[in-house]
């Protein structure tokens, strides 16, 4: 039987309460949201805490997708299922819908949260790639107030984030820019598994040319990896199959996969190139609109 080592359980009634508890209990405590990464790790005794602070009651405060003119704000307790079913995200950032369909399975998605996924900081985690792709920023709250960090600042290394022992992630903000769309591609060994490689693309067009394009890759480096060289190469050029292939080659070159039980480094580089190409193709087709039929392109 796998059970966690003994700990004391606290239930936070508000964000401030959770932060007070964290402040008092320090690094011996950890917040638990969906628990689908933390509890398995505690069962295996990979991590042990003296206190778990259950923040599921904060879903009423931090479970939301709010659309503003220049940004979307997603509460950290928003569950995977809610992201999958959000009509606002489907319209503005279909990358979330693509990714959420292949994250774990429906039962896990009923519990897991975006905040938990990001704070787990697993290098193979799909939502981290999505947030990197979309140039998201993270709102972190502590005793002294709030601070906002970029995704690059948020990730410190595998399983390590900028969130301090007495702080918690409360919100993810994603800038909304006109005339853009996004897509996500993933190859896993079987349904619900972690990615061998997954790839997010966001693209924004201006007068038929690419005004900006962003690529975020998971499982090919110590953190989900944005590839700025792709953005530079695509800037100002009209979308074409040749351009997608070029972007894929750059992504493969700039990522740093390692050989493990999910595949060889060479295979992962191949996937990085291919998935970048496919995601770019789909994202560009989506800018043209769902009625164009271009979105149905096979990868």
């Amino acid at each position, binding site marked *: 039987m796998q059970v966690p080592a003994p700990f*004391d359980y606290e239930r936070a009634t508000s964000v401030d309460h959770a932060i007070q508890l964290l402040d008092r209990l320090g690094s011996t405590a950890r917040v638990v949201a969906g628990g689908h990464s933390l509890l398995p790790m505690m069962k295996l005794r990979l991590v042990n805490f003296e206190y778990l602070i*259950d923040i599921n009651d904060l879903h009423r405060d931090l479970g939301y997708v709010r659309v503003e003119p220049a940004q979307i704000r997603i509460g950290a307790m928003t569950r995977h299922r809610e992201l999958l079913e959000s009509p606002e995200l489907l319209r503005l950032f279909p990358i979330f819908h693509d990714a959420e369909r292949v994250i774990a399975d*429906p039962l896990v998605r*009923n*519990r897991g949260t975006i905040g938990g996924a990001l704070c787990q900081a697993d290098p193979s985690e799909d939502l981290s790639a999505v947030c990197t792709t979309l140039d998201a920023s993270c709102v972190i709250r502590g005793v002294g107030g709030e601070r906002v960090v970029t995704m690059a600042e948020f990730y410190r290394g595998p399983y390590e984030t900028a969130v301090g022992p007495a702080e918690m992630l409360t919100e993810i903000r994603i800038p909304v820019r006109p005339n853009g769309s996004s897509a996500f591609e993933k190859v896993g060994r079987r349904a*619900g598994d972690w990615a061998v490689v997954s790839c997010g693309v966001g693209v924004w067009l201006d007068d038929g040319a690419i005004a900006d394009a962003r690529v975020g890759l998971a499982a090919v480096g110590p953190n989900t990896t944005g590839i700025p060289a792709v953005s530079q190469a695509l800037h100002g050029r009209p979308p074409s199959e040749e351009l997608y292939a070029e972007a894929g080659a750059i992504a493969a070159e700039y990522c740093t996969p390692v050989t493990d039980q999910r595949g060889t480094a060479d295979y992962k580089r191949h996937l990085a190139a291919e998935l970048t190409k496919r995601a770019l193709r789909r994202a560009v087709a989506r800018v043209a609109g769902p009625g164009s039929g271009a979105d149905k392109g096979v990868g």
Partner: protein
Amino acid sequence: MRVNGAEVTCEIEARLLLVHFLRDHLGLTGTHWGCDTSNCGACAVWLDGEPVKSCTVLAAMAAGHDVRTVEDLERFGELDPVQRGFMECHGLQCGFCTPGMLMTARALLDRNPSPSEQEIREAISGQVCRCTGYATIVRSVQWAAAEEAGTRVADSS
């Protein structure tokens, strides 16, 4: 917490998992304890109306919430249509995955009374069956959907 509609109060260790609380403290052994790693889905129960894997939920986290287990599917001595579907269409062989499959199937049909085969397969994609190859499980859920559609027609005529 409320389990199958009944209020339950118990002093427990914080680390007790919901699946063990249901089985060992309440004697509700219909919920099966399988892989312990939130892969197999044999332990699926409802938490506030949605199916979850009870090996990855602390019993303490369910305090104050509604839990529903396979024991609650039968009502007034009559099996739920999904249970009858599994009987009619041989949806089980060894039966280990069945309680979880039933709870997920019931939740699916409550949200989507006429799911496609693909939607059924997606709904049970977090659960493992090593006997049936899933084909008869899908058929069982389809049987239940058709049965309920028939009942609705009969009720409205």
